[in-house]
């Protein structure tokens, strides 16, 4: 449960009133859980299409990018943000510096870098390019070339 504690400690500051639950818990106990100010913690193997009809109840969604080579979080972010128009926060946790540009453009609205990146200039990695070659969930600040 260390992962959840970490998220809570980070998020408590801004999201004190959010009730964070694991994706599986939400799916299994949907009827019993409070629908007020819920945040859902999604893992890479969770099927986000299972919550697409319940997004109105959800205040924020936490996606886990810990595994550097596991790209499922980018598709999860795209589907939630672009296809199902989730309007709450999509928070990427355990984020890697070198993948910020991909996370942000896929629809992640805020992120928490892994501790090992403390002290580096995030801007260099979040905004390293001036143009983009494809439509994405978020192309702000980029000249479109497509």
């Amino acid at each position, binding site marked *: 449960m260390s992962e959840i504690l970490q998220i809570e400690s980070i998020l408590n500051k801004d999201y004190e009133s959010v009730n964070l639950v694991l994706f599986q818990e939400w799916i299994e106990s949907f009827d019993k859980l409070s629908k007020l100010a819920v945040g859902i913690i999604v893992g890479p193997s969770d*099927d986000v299409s299972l919550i697409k009809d319940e997004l109105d109840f959800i205040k924020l969604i936490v996606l886990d990018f810990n595994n*550097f*080579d*596991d*790209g*499922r979080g*980018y*598709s*999860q972010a*795209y589907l939630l943000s672009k*296809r199902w128009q989730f309007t709450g926060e999509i928070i990427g946790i355990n984020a*890697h510096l*070198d*993948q910020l*540009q*991909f*996370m*942000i*453009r*896929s629809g992640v609205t805020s992120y928490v870098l892994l501790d090992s990146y403390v002290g*580096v200039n995030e801007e*260099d*990695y979040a905004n*390293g*390019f*001036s*143009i*983009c*070659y*494809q*439509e*994405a*969930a978020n192309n702000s600040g980029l*000249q479109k*070339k*497509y």
Partner: protein
Amino acid sequence: MYQYSPEDSNFLVERVNQFEKQLKRHLAGDLDDAKFRSLRLRNGLYMELHAHMLRVAIPYGTLSSTQLRSLADVADKYDRGFGHFTTRQNIQFNWIELPEIANLLRDLSDEGLHAIQTSGKATRNITADPLSGLTDGEIEDARPYCELIRRWFNLHPEFSWLPGKFKIAINGAKLDETALRIHDLGLRLVRNSEDQLGFSVFVGGGLGAAAMIAAETASFVKVEDILSYLESTMRVYNLKGRRDHQKKLRIKFLVRELGADEFSRLVDEDWQQTKNDPNLKLNLVELEQLKKDFALPIKSINLGGFEEKVDFNYSIWKKNNVRSHKINGFSIVNISLTKLGAAPGDATSEQMRILADLAEKYSASELRTTKRQTIVFPYVRKDQVYDLWQSLEKYGLASPHQGTLAQIVACPGRDYCDLAKAVSIPIATRVQERFNDMKTLLDIGDLNINISGCENSCAHHHIADIGLLGMQKNGEEYYQITLAGETLHETVIGKKLGPSVSGENIIDAVEIIVNVYLKNRIDQERFTDVFKRIGIAPFKEKVYE
């Protein structure tokens, strides 16, 4: 000829700057090996047996003379004076020093060349028929489509961290020079009954230990809808592809496990959500501009009084290396880089500069690279072919091997690659030494031999007439033989002949196979046709008797 815009060139520089920062962090110990590996591969950089290897893209296999000179300069400045043209329209440099990589990439970017996504688990360099735009009966030149699709998946935010590598080939010609059905995704340009242009889509092909032929997932996708269809295909793969087993990462395993019908259904279900999104439509205005940029730089000419030179050596070379062109008065010239004892596809910086100069003089400053690791001059006037041949002859580049057994495709093998189980180049050399008589080679005709040093199958041995796969048995090098693979007319994975053969005996085995073919051949029958008619038994019987 198409050239990158200033924005494209700037993007290449931005990418180099980013990679340079990552490299500095790695060298300072702030970026660990595993993550740096993932990042460097997406910039084409491998750690090989002896040094770093850089793979530079030659998108759709098209190069200008200026670009080839730039590659020659890189070979001299950063390597040991040579480069290696690969089977997927890339060029590799084998002796790169890590601290010099950013400067090297900057030099390349000056000429619109780069190494972006030439490796790693992302969309790789998109390959096209090296004869795109040159042959009769073609639906369309595939290169403008390659370029638009290449751009779209360039640092794509959603699909840059796929389960495995993702190779795309696009063919617009009658014959399939791209081998598209052994790719993760192959696109064939087609016209439907209403004469609309679109693509047939094939997904899940690949070689390696489990060779598979891609299944058709859509028989017709309109040109403007292709990006959304490709995105849906990659989304299904990204979310459902195997990530738990190193040997099952490629999309072919997902297609096999789900079944092609179910895979296609999932793609279609996703696609219905996006196919009408105007932001995902292929930009048809840009496409028209690209068609102009890629238009052939030649016009039909009448060479009424032209008489071909009579010269025995020239005739042999011409028979094997020169093809007819759809534009009147022109020929397509294929140049073999094969040299005894050297890796197929290797070219020295001097050869690159000579080829660049000759292309400038005889081929509108354009060259193409092929999956048989040869160089094509696409626009040679028929009345200048002889002059070109004389120049090639002078520089030792007039090998008449194209289309003969001596034009062997081989990976670097155990001499250079730390994945390889056995040597490849010395086997190629021994085959060439065994069949060193041009009369015999001409008699055998168009028969291809491909040699891979391990199951990664970099030399595409599964799709050769005779394929050799290197392996280890009790500490010794052995070769498994496959026969009658092909992709040009139809896609067929070669059949295993039987137990693997030792390195010592493998050349004898090849000779026996060739002799069985010659003995059973009727007229000019191709190897694959003979194989279909007589089956594997006669080959097996002779090789293992």
